[in-house]
C-alpha cells in the first residue's frame, strides 16, 4: 500500500473513527448554546442545531482528521449555518432576547433562568456582530481561545482581552457577582 493509499484509507476511516454517540452527547449542548447566544432565541437555536447535525451527518465522509478536530469541523459548519440564517432572515437582532427559554423546566428556577437568559441576550443584542460571535464561540461552543483566534483571524491575546472586557461589562450590567 503506497502513501496515497494510506492517506486515502485514513480519510475514509475517519468517519468510523468518530464516535458519533459520544460526539452527539458532548457537542449537542455546545452547538445549541452557541446558537442560543448567537441568536438569542432558543427555538431558533433548535432549528439551527438540527441543521448543523444533519449536514455534518450527511457530509461525515468529508471530515478530515488531519485538518483539525471534529468539534472544530462541526463549528465550522455551525458558523456557515448562522451566516446563511441571517442572510435569509435579515433580522439580526429583531428577536434577540424576546423568546421563551427553558420550556422543559416548568419550575420557578426555570422561570428565573429564562429571565436571566433574556437579560443576557438583550445585552448581547447590542454588541457588534463580531463580538457577539466571539462571545458565542467562547461560552456557547466552549472553544479554546486559540481555536477562536484561528476562526476569527485574531491573536489569542486579542481574543483574551476582548473577552475579558466583554464579560466584565456584561457582568456589571446584569449585576452578577
Amino acid at each position, binding site marked *: 500500500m503506497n502513501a496515497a493509499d494510506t492517506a486515502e484509507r485514513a480519510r475514509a476511516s475517519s468517519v468510523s473513527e468518530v464516535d458519533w454517540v459520544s460526539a*452527539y452527547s458532548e457537542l*449537542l449542548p455546545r452547538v445549541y448554546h452557541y446558537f*442560543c447566544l448567537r441568536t438569542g432565541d432558543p427555538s431558533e437555536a433548535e432549528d439551527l*442545531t438540527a441543521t448543523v447535525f444533519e449536514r455534518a451527518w450527511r457530509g461525515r465522509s468529508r471530515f478530515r482528521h488531519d485538518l483539525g478536530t471534529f468539534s472544530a469541523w462541526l463549528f465550522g459548519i455551525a458558523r456557515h449555518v448562522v451566516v446563511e440564517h441571517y442572510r435569509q432572515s435579515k433580522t439580526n437582532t429583531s428577536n434577540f432576547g424576546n423568546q421563551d*427559554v427553558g420550556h422543559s423546566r416548568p419550575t420557578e428556577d426555570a422561570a428565573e433562568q429564562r429571565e436571566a437568559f433574556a437579560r*443576557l441576550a438583550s445585552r448581547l443584542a447590542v454588541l457588534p456582530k463580531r463580538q457577539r460571535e466571539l462571545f458565542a464561540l467562547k461560552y456557547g461552543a466552549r472553544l479554546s481561545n486559540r481555536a477562536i483566534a484561528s476562526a476569527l483571524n485574531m491573536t489569542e491575546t486579542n481574543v483574551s482581552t476582548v473577552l475579558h472586557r466583554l464579560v466584565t461589562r456584561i457582568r456589571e450590567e446584569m449585576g452578577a457577582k
Partner: protein
Amino acid sequence: MNEEFIIKVLPPVPPRFAKALYDRLAADHSRASLKMFLRHLTIRERWQATAIVLTILLTAACTQIILRSRYVRIGDLFLVEISRLTELVNPGGAAPAIPTPGQLPINEYGWTVWEFSPGSPKWIPDGFSSIDIPSEMTAYEQTIGLWSNMSNERIRLYIVPQAEGMHPFAPPGEYEEVSVSGNPAILIHGRYTPTSSESPQSERPWSEDLGFQLSWPSHGSMYTLETFGTYLAQAELIRMAESVAPPERPFSQ
C-alpha cells in the same frame, strides 16, 4: 475571570429535541445509499469496484456477442455468422429478404423443382475427374457435379434456391468475401469436424483443414463448390467456379 454567571443562564437542551434529532439522524443512517458506500471506499477500492462491474458487464456483452449468430450480407447472399462455442445456428429473427428473380416452384413433397439444367464447370483441376453422383435427394440442395482424384479427394458442386433461407454459415474470421466473375462471393475456410461415432455428444470444433466452401449467386440460386481437405488451393476453386457455364434454361418469373 468569573464566567459562572454566563453558564448558569444558558438554557438546557430540551430533551425532546435532543431525542428527536438523534432519531432522525439514526433513521438517515439506515438509508445509507450506494453513493455513501462508495464515498467510504479508497480510490483504489473504487477503481477495483469499477473494474469488477465493468468486467461483469463486458463478460455479459461478450457472451452475447459470442453466442449470438447474425446475418452478414455479402453481395446478394447472406452468411450466418455463428458462434465458435456452439454449432447451433439460430440467428435472431427472420432472414433478411434477398433480391432474387423469384421463388423456385416446389412439388407436392415440398422439394424444389428445378426448371433448368445448371451448367457444369468447364475447368477442372488437374488429377480430378467427374464421378457418378450418389443417389441422394434433399429438399433444398441439388448436387450438380462430383469430382475425385486418385487419392479419393473430392470436389462437389451443388445449388440451393437462393431465397429459401439455406445460408452458408461460419464463425467470425473463418470466411471472406471473394470475387467470382467480378461478383461478390463467400469463401469459407474449413468446417465443423464430423461427429465422432465414439462420443457423438462431444463438442465439434471448427477446423480450417477441412476444405473450402465457395458460394456465389446465379439466376435465383446459390451455387456452392466445396472441398473436404487441403488438397485444393483457393485460387483453383475460384477458377473452377468462374468456369461454370450459365444454365441452359434459366429460371425466370
